[in-house]
Structure formats: structure tokens, C-alpha cells
């Protein structure tokens, strides 16, 4: 909790250390953080509501644009839910294709994260190297799907593009290059003093705290929790593939780096298995435009952690309700715990270590009175006045500032 004697620093909504608008309020005693709180809501785009206005096919492209990095994660999670409601059995080849793109996406996301982490600790050489290598997998995705981001390969009933033997060879060749590079990064992470000194013991989240705060993905696995949807509740083709769940017990940012590097190696082996095992057959099964009434929850292991979609259909062309729980929403609570009693300078890397995506996370909360069941709506003018009062409380008076400005000119 924020105490009155401490220095309070607002970090964000606009801040050089943050990549997206979000607001952290940090209480400081000297250089040490005593308390921190996060405030989301600067990036709300109303995607869930917009999905209700669109058909399933149109909604798919909107869902894909929730996140630029894990676009395939969101769209697969959504189509899985819709297919479950409609009772569509996707062909094995389509399932393998989805898994292939998912693993390539994981490779690109983890390489991107490694670069961002390097940048946050002032190790920009690492950023340049990893992002250069990331281009290899980005080109691969462009060849396979027709786009570098927002691949648009999923559709209800299967996938839209097939893989041919020439592309298979290209994938294997690129994976060989990336594996060699990743081995170098693993060696670097284990030996490079800059990384070790800067990351070890930073942003500690104990096993108990990770469990209590419901951390997901690499954040949880770095705290010793072996939780991976691909293993626990296999979807797509993961049940037929052989892979390990990487987890370490160091509980810090260094552990999160090792988990992601380990997962990269697992992804390479998965991609090779997929290329070897991919069965022949159709890639698309024709699906009805109208999805029968029903509801489904779909789970997916996105690069950042478990992604969850809930879809309710009402028998028309448009969904009745779509709910998205992005992995960052599950991880964001743990940031306050990681920052406790740490130095202010560690804040950027600790926040970056959960690989946050705030625009995926932002949600609208509507308040209902439990007795009268009435929705509590707030008028625009009320919000404005509330904002002015909030700043006045912090010692900033816009009205007097305005008067001063008009006097000046």
C-alpha cells in the first residue's frame, strides 16, 4: 500500500521506459520501491463489443488484430471455440498447419522479447542481433502465409493456405540457421557477465506468489510452475508431438530469459517434427455461415502465456458474446509483487520481463447495482469534471493554469 511519507512517482501513461500507454504509481523510499500500483485502461479499443456487430468471418480478422505479436494465438483460440460450438471436425493437416504457424510465431515472439530485454538493460547489441535473426522467421511466415504479421491463415473449418515441398525445405533451412544462432544466445546468457549481473536476482517472484497471483506462461515457468496448455490440455496437433515443458526455479528475470531460450530450442524441434509428420488431406472443411446456439471456452498457449477465449453463439451469423482473456491480464498482478523492495532502475526490465501487451489486456468494466440490476453509466461531462478534480487533488489545477495562459497571450 502507498504510505504518506514516501515519494510518489507516476510512471506513465506516457513515459520513455514504457512501450505502450499504461500508468504505474510508484512509492519510493530513497531508491527502493515500497509500493506500486498499476492502472490500465488507456488503450481500450472495444474489440469484444465490435465482434458482436460482425459476422464470424469478419470477427476473425478483428480478433487477429488484438495483438500484432500473438495474432495467430488469438485467431486460433477464437476459431477453436467457434468450431467447438458448430461441431466442425478440422482435418489433421489443417491442425498441423496451425501448429506450425503457432510455433513459428512463438520463435518470432521470443526472439523479439530477447531483443527488448537486451534493450531495457542497455545491451543494445543483443537487440540488434536478435532482431536481425528474427527477420529469418518473419520472412518464413511471409512465405507461408502471405504476410509478416497478422497472418490471416486461420478460418473457421481449417486453414487458408497449404504448404508445399519447396516451402518445407525453406522452413528446415531457416530453422537450422536459427538453431545455431539460439545456441549462441544460450551460451551468451550463461557466460556474458553483463546479462548475469543485470538479470540475476531482479524481479523475484517466488513459487508461492506465482501460484497465488495466477501467473501464466514463461513468468510462471520461471518460478518453477510446470504449467503449459500445450501439455495440460493439448489442442491442434500438440497431442501427437513430443516436447518438454521448460521450467526453472530461479524465480527471477534471468530465469525468464532461460525459459524463453529453452522454449526456442523446443520450438525448433517441434517445427522439424511437424514438417516430418504432416499428414496429407484437405486443409479446409466448409463451415456454415450460421453457427448454432451454444457456448465454448477455448484455451491456447500463446508465447506470453495462456490465452482464453469465450464465445457464445445464438444461432445467427454473428456471435452473441466474445470474451478475451489475454495472457498479460493474468501476469500483470505479479508485477507489483516483483517490484516490491527493488530499485527503481529495475522497473523497466521487470515490467518487460512478463512481455506485457497492454492493448490486449485493456477491458471495459460496467458497474451494475446488484439490487436494482441497473447499469451505472457515466456521462462524458462527469468524467471530465472527475478528471479535473483528480488532478486538482494531485496539486495540478488546469483552470488556474488556463487563466494564467490567457493572461500571458
Amino acid at each position, binding site marked *: 500500500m502507498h504510505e504518506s511519507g514516501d515519494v510518489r512517482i507516476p510512471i506513465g501513461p506516457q513515459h520513455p521506459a514504457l512501450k505502450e500507454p499504461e500508468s504505474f504509481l510508484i512509492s519510493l523510499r530513497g531508491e527502493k520501491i515500497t509500493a506500486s500500483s498499476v492502472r490500465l485502461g488507456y488503450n481500450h479499443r472495444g474489440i469484444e463489443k465490435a465482434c458482436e456487430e*460482425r*459476422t464470424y*468471418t*469478419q*470477427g*476473425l*480478422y*478483428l480478433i487477429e488484430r488484438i495483438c500484432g505479436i500473438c495474432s495467430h494465438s488469438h485467431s486460433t483460440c477464437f476459431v477453436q471455440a467457434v468450431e467447438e460450438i458448430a461441431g466442425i471436425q478440422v482435418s489433421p493437416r489443417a491442425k498441423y498447419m496451425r501448429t506450425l504457424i503457432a510455433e513459428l510465431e512463438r520463435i518470432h515472439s521470443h526472439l523479439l522479447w530477447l531483443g527488448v530485454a537486451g534493450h531495457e538493460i542497455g545491451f543494445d*547489441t*543483443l537487440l540488434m*542481433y536478435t532482431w*536481425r535473426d528474427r*527477420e529469418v522467421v518473419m*520472412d518464413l511466415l*511471409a*512465405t507461408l502465409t*502471405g*504476410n509478416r504479421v*497478422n497472418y*490471416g491463415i486461420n*478460418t473457421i473449418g481449417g486453414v*487458408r*493456405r497449404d504448404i508445399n515441398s519447396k516451402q518445407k525445405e525453406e522452413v528446415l533451412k531457416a530453422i537450422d540457421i536459427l538453431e545455431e544462432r539460439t545456441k*549462441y544466445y544460450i551460451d*551468451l546468457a550463461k*557466460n*556474458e*557477465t*553483463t546479462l*548475469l549481473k543485470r538479470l540475476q536476482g531482479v524481479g523475484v517472484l517466488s513459487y508461492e506468489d506465482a501460484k497465488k497471483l495466477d501467473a501464466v506462461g514463461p513468468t510462471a515457468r520461471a518460478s518453477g510452475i510446470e504449467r503449459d496448455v500445450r501439455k495440460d490440455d493439448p489442442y491442434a496437433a500438440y497431442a501427437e508431438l513430443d516436447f518438454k515443458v521448460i521450467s526453472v526455479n530461479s524465480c527471477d528475470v534471468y530465469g525468464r530469459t532461460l525459459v524463453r531460450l529453452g522454449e526456442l530450442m523446443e520450438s525448433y524441434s517441434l517445427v522439424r517434427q511437424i514438417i516430418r509428420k504432416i499428414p496429407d488431406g484437405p486443409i479446409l472443411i466448409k463451415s456454415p455461415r450460421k453457427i448454432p446456439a451454444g457456448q465454448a471456452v477455448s484455451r491456447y498457449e500463446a508465447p506470453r502465456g495462456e490465452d482464453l477465449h469465450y464465445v457464445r453463439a445464438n444461432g445467427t451469423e454473428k456471435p452473441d458474446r466474445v470474451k478475451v482473456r489475454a495472457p498479460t491480464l493474468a501476469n500483470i498482478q505479479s508485477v507489483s509483487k516483483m517490484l516490491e523492495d527493488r530499485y527503481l532502475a529495475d522497473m523497466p526490465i521487470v515490467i518487460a520481463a512478463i512481455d506485457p501487451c497492454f492493448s490486449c489486456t485493456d477491458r471495459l468494466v460496467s458497474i451494475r447495482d446488484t439490487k436494482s440490476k441497473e447499469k451505472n453509466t457515466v456521462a462524458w461531462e462527469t468524467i471530465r469534471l472527475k478528471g479535473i478534480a483528480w488532478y486538482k487533488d494531485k496539486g495540478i489545477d488546469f483552470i488556474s493554469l488556463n487563466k494564467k495562459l490567457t493572461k500571458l497571450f
Partner: protein
Amino acid sequence: MSRPGKIARLLIQSLFKKPATGNYPVDRSGMPEGFRGKLKFNAGMCIGCKMCMRDCPSEAIEIRKLGEKQFEAQINLAKCIYCGQCVDSCPKKVLEITAEFELARLDPAQLKVIFNDGNKDSPKG
């Protein structure tokens, strides 16, 4: 064992490597086969079912009837998200995707491209 400056060897190696970036305006071979760029509309084959209009996520395409079995398409390049769903939705393979990606225009009116007979696009504005 930790050893400082382990990355230094790689840095020196990089001095003698060719750049990782492409020579863009001169070399335009960067787009892979099957890249989803600007749409092409073969007017003569259109039956006017308007499935593309129904499925378009961004309302970028509009099919208009000109006469008996004659249709024209207006594609708004600024609205189009280049997903290629209209190509999949079309039952007669009227629409196709090209690899053209340099679509920026100075005049916003030129972003509305109209395709009618003869497979030609005539930017209006």
C-alpha cells in the same frame, strides 16, 4: 565461467559482413510468392452475388451493377486490410491478389480504385 566481452569477437566479425538490410528502392525482390497485396478484379466474370461485400471485414469493396450481367468493383485501398478474404469468398474466382504493395498516394481520392471491363483499373479523382 563468466568472461567479459564475449560478444566482442562477433562484433569484429560483423565488420566484414554484408549489411542485413536490403537495398530497397533499387532491389524490389523482397516480396515473397503469394504475398497479399493489391486486389485485382476481372469484371467480365462477376455474377454480382456480392459475397465479397458480405465477408469483407473493413467494408473496403463495393460491387455495383452497370447493366445486364455487367458489374464494376470499387476498392478502397485505404480501408482494405489486405486479408484476402474476398478472394476466398468469391465463388467464381473473379478476384485475385497481386504482389503490388506500394499503394501510398498523395491524393486521397486516388485511393478509391474502380475496376470495370477490360481488367483495367482507372483511378478516379
